[in-house]
């Protein structure tokens, strides 16, 4: 019996098969990987490792004949090893399907060689690819032939979080938003994923289909927790905290993480104690006639909190009701009579009623972007290439911290005033720039700020000079082979430009023998890293990447030249 799954044995087995039958298997893996990369789901060598681990092949002689073969096996619970009945097993591209029997077994006759993709699913279970956070079904491929023995397929049982939200007297709290938060790294940046469920009338909540992993649980009671009557009433002076992180934290840094194992049923109960609530009021000084004004109170971890608020358009005053003590940021969004967005932000510590706040609204920043093309290549020199209508660069602004939203735009060449990034709230942003027409970003400045080296700082109400981006085409190239022991494997090479630490490293997935080639590199000095997996590597953060400097190779890429480099494989996965 051949075991399918995520273990290293399976990996090794597949690697052997790659050597035996490199072309079709690698072709498929390569194809799948490209698709994943396109989807920006993963960007790491781990992807390939995983694909390898789930591609299990029998002892096929090649499968060139016209005979058809049987495919059979068993689906088991990856935790208990018990067979799982009524699992849907499908073979593609032949569209054969069956449910497993009471003993978890399945059996197909007349499956045409040489390959079939086998897909298994059942509510309450995940496959290994999903466990890794892809949230996308990637399924094993079998080599069909006379020697394919019974296979064992593993499904990972879902985890479930359930519990109750109640007050200190044991009374259920209905309508509380229970937030399950997962922090993870995607595309080299810290991300936050959140799903929400609401407590029922008996205070209970239940969240299933949880993948194994680390979570933070928070409850956000409805401010009208005693019903709408209480929510509106003027004379109700107490309420539950705006947000409580399990077990009793006020923000995510004081929360206790919950580690869910496959198949685990975890009970999380919240007991909330009413506390004093306060009224916050102030004025939004502006001569503009305001439209569509929204007042938001944001928690310390960036949570959007719901409070009752009122706004008088006549005297531009606002009142936020029933605010528990705590640290917040008030954000006010509005539009003036011309429809132009206005924004105001003010940190606020609430310990008592507060009145007389002045929160001046300012126009949100709009950053003009000029893209210059300083190309000297033969196509340009001879007038054969015209970039006038092309989308030359893509600019992303990644907000530093959870208070503000990411933004960005795609730009054409030139100094058209319409080419700009609108509605940028004050704050710090990491600017990521991609040259869409080949070449590289030679410089990116916004006033005195060198955006290749430092973040963009947008001050409140400040007018920013245009962002000047210069693209050049005297690109260099780097090629080489990753050094590693053991069977062939793919990895991901990162090239971090030392002259542009604020830009994400260039990356490329190697072949199974470790070969790689990176093009369109800006000339200059680089550190070169090779990772088995980028799954948890915050590689856009130079400080996080510097932990691996001891295994990084250093090279200088010449203009219009090529450099060879052989970085050592950095193994991050156990």
């Amino acid at each position: 019996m051949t075991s399918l799954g995520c273990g290293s044995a399976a990996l090794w087995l597949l690697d052997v098969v790659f050597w035996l039958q490199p072309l079709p298997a690698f072709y498929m893996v390569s194809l799948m990987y490209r698709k994943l990369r396109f989807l920006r789901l993963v960007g790491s060598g781990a992807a390939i490792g995983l694909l390898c681990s789930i591609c299990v092949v029998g002892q096929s002689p090649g499968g060139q004949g016209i005979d058809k073969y049987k495919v059979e096996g068993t689906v088991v619970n990856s935790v208990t090893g018990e067979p799982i009945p009524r699992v849907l097993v499908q073979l593609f591209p032949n569209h054969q399907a069956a449910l497993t029997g009471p003993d978890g077994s399945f059996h197909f006759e007349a499956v045409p060689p040489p390959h079939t993709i086998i897909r298994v699913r059942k509510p309450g279970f995940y496959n290994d690819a999903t466990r890794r956070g892809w949230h996308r079904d990637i399924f094993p491929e079998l080599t069909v032939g006379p020697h394919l023995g019974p296979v064992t397929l593993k499904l990972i049982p879902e985890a479930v979080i359930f519990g109750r939200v109640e007050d200190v007297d044991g009374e259920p709290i209905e309508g509380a938003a229970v937030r399950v938060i997962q922090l993870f790294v995607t595309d080299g940046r810290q991300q936050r994923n959140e799903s929400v469920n609401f407590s029922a009338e008996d205070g209970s909540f239940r969240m299933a289909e949880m993948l194994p992993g680390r979570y933070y649980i928070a409850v956000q009671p409805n401010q009208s927790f005693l019903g709408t009557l209480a929510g509106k009433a003027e004379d109700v002076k107490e309420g539950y905290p705006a947000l409580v992180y399990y077990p009793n934290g006020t923000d995510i840094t004081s929360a206790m993480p919950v580690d869910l194992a496959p198949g685990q049923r975890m009970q999380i109960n919240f007991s909330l104690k009413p506390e004093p609530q306060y009224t916050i009021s102030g004025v939004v000084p502006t001569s503009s006639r305001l439209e569509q004004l929204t007042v938001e109170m944001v928690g310390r971890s960036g949570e959007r909190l719901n409070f009752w608020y009122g706004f008088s358009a006549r005297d531009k005053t606002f009142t936020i009701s029933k605010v528990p003590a705590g640290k917040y940021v008030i954000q006010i969004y509005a539009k003036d009579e011309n429809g132009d967005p206005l924004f105001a932000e003010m940190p606020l510590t609430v310990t008592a009623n507060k009145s007389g706040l002045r929160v001046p609204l300012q126009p949100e920043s709009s950053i003009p972007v000029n893209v210059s093309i300083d190309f000297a290549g033969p196509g340009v020199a001879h007038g054969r290439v015209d970039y006038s209508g092309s989308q030359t660069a893509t600019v992303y602004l990644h907000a530093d911290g959870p208070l503000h939203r990411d933004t960005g735009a795609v730009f054409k060449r030139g100094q058209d005033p319409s080419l700009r990034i609108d509605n940028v709230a004050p704050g710090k942003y990491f600017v990521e720039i991609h040259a869409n027409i080949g070449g590289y970003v030679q410089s990116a400045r916004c006033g005195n700020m060198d955006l290749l080296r430092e973040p963009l700082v947008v001050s409140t109400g400040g007018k920013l000079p245009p962002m000047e981006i210069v693209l050049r085409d005297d690109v260099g190239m780097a090629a080489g082979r990753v050094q590693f022991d053991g069977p062939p494997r793919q990895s991901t090479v990162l090239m971090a430009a030392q002259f542009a630490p604020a830009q994400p490293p260039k990356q490329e997935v190697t072949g199974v023998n470790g070969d790689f080639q990176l093009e369109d590199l800006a000339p200059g000095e680089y550190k070169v890293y090779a990772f088995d997996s980028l799954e948890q590597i915050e590689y856009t953060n130079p400080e996080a990447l510097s932990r691996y400097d001891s295994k990084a190779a250093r090279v200088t890429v010449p203009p219009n030249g090529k450099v060879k480099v052989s970085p050592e494989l950095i193994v991050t996965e156990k």
Partner: protein
Amino acid sequence: MINLRSYIFACALAAAGFLAQRNPSPSPQPAAVQVSHVFEINGTVIDAASSAPLAHARVALEPLAAGAAQRTTLTADDGRFAFNGLAQGAYRLSAERTGYLRQSFEQHDRYSTLVVVGPDLESGNLLFRLRRSAAISGRITDEQNEPVRRANVDLFQVAIFGERLTPYPHGSAITNDVGSYHFAHLPPGKYFLAVHAKPWYSTSGAASAASVKPDGALLDVTYPIAFYSGATDPAGAAVINLAAGDVFTADMTLHPVPALRLRVSLGPAETIQRAAIALQQSIFGFPSQEEFWLRRVEAGIYEEAGLRPGHYIVQARSTTGKLYLREVDLATNSEISLTEATPTAVVSGLLRPETPAVVPTGAFVQLRNRKSQDVWIEQASAKGEFEFKESIPAGSYSVEVHGWPGFLFTGMVANEAKLDGQTFEVNPVVTPAVKLTLLLTQGTGEIMGVALRENKPVSGVMIELVPQDAAHHPDLYRRNQSNTDGTFTLDAIPPGRYTLLAIQNGWDLEWANPEALKPYMARGEIVQVQQKGKYNLKVQAQ
């Protein structure tokens, strides 16, 4: 359009709920406000069934006077509550408690009794009867007793919708990982449940019929719409009778049936966007939220697999604007041809107020097909002109005008189209272009009055204004409830002849059914409402 219909229907329900909060008319304010006097409202909150006092119920008092703040209090251990220091006027009293419905005082339907305080008015020792909320929960399992996740459970409440008692959507729920669903905070009444789901293992639609192998053939299944307690036909649906406080368990098991395919061929010259050809089923006459979008197989041929047996409306709108509409009873794999476009009419018109006025942005005209419940909406221009972008198929349509505060749609005239009150007929073969003139008035009348029984004011009585030609003008009914001092107000009444009724214990009547009202009409007060007329009437409660 199907999407729009579902959306509009949801909006209409939401709007109805909104109106329910707003509509009960204020009691007439006493002319002279005695600021030197303060008054009190007090009483006891009790369980409506057992009369036991309810401690820790939250009671809210909302003055109808503009700008006055709402106050709340908790009942004491003996259920008592009190609000003192009140100015003369009318107040809306509400209460809630865990396990009970949030209610206004003596609430019936969307009406309640306002508490009026002032000299010589009794506003003490009120008995606030709080009804326990009911709930329905259950578990949906499949033929192997495994939970069905993400099944759609639709709850219908039997209530007056239009002229008679009929099931109408009350809410929907999605089953969780153990197949459970729960409907909370239900008022007592009669309910139906319908479940629609697809077996998680169904391979329908995974490939064309030709490529599904015998191994998978058995998995090409679906679940028919199931009605509690197991029927697959609405006529067999069991009524769930909920009394206050009931917690009803309605478990259901779904049994798969072979899924069906429908192939639709269109005229050779027509092109259809995928999003413009769809199938939809109805549940109790209301469009199911579930829609099936057909996929293109080849030029002019569209197909959908995984269908359950039943009655469907097939609808396609070509890129040239032609409508193809057909009803299909699906019992086997079927093919239909939509080569003949459905005749449609262009409907346009004008909003005509009594005196010229600029139509505000946001004013719109709504057409609803009285059979299919399909809804079309079109904005009116500042001049009041409108024209429906999509042409309208044959049928009977009710007209509504919204988004113009202060103006009431009272009637219409049309070129050649048959009219019946605020309904008109579209017959594209005879009249391919219908022009409507929709008449609006600001000159509505108002009736203020007092309901009496044995010459004493009586509270909590259903007040109803019945239009003379009720059969053709169901929109002209007006209702309210008498307050603690017997007063009531009916407003937004178009000119015309009406009968004013006060019916005690009349809240279960089919109030828009002339036959049901017949026994009361003889003792009603006849009133001829003039434009902008205001009337003070006394009416004897029956």
